[in-house]
């Protein structure tokens, strides 16, 4: 299992997982599942957290937090964008994606 410290190191400060008081923040179960999906899909596709970070930083910039939305919701929405982009780049998702 990927240690959380390794995930933190791979993501770096620019794309760090949302935390409150040091704890990971999952406001709703889908956010935890998004993280879990990332961990599993990266392993299965032989991708590194550094590979993912490139996409995540880009996705965060492209999808800033919206009014009425929490920081964690915005982050994990960008996370889904990044995961989709990475897997598409690897030819593992058709270009139509999962909308």
């Amino acid at each position, binding site marked *: *299992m990927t*240690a*959380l*410290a390794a995930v*933190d190191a791979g993501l770096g400060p620019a794309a760090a997982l949302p935390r*409150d*008081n*040091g*704890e*990971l*923040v*999952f*406001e*709703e*179960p*889908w*956010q*935890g*599942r*998004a*993280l*879990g*999906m990332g*961990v*599993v*899909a990266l392993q*299965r*596709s032989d991708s590194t957290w550094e590979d993912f970070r490139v996409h995540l930083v880009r996705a965060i910039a492209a999808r800033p937090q919206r009014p009425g939305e929490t920081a964690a*919701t915005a982050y*994990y*929405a960008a996370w*889904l964008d990044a*995961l*989709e982009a990475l*897997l598409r780049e690897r030819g*593992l*998702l058709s270009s139509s*994606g*999962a*909308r």
Partner: protein
Amino acid sequence: MSAGHHHERAASAAELRAHALEAVLAERGLVSTDAIDAVVAYYEQDVGPQNGARAVARAWVDDGYRERLLAHPNEALDELGFGGMEGHNMAVVANSETVHNVIVCTLCSCYPWPVLGLPPSWYKSEAYRARVVAEPRAVLREFGLALADDVEVRVWDSSAEMRYLVLPLRPAGSEGLGEEELAARVTRDCMIGTALP
């Protein structure tokens, strides 16, 4: 964590998208529901305690490390690669034959997560937070931990600035065990103070 604050509302667009992506990835054989469940459970429950357990086991076999862990916890944990304290001060409180320590955060859920992972749900419950201060012996008994009357119970209230970790006593009869075997005996609850190794 604030799960439960958003019960009575329709699924958000992002939530629907997460489900849709999971379905597509599952169809492609890239993820399985079970694998994701395991990861989520790992991050919610299992990550972390083994870091604290390694530090405890090291302290049991290495007196010099024990001294450093008690005197300069942040530096001693860094030595083992458990950084990420984000500037929070760690304090390690050692159990002895006459003192038993237990940690709580009476205000919220401050917790030494880099060494213990995510806190168990009961740690965040109002019942534990209030009662462990008022009647620690009764609470510990409910955890199955009956302490002799002559053992003093010290309750440490964590805060954003100070996080505590309990260094339990090395169990009797563990002389022949190696550091890894010792670490396996140290559970999360031992380092909160609600169990003994």
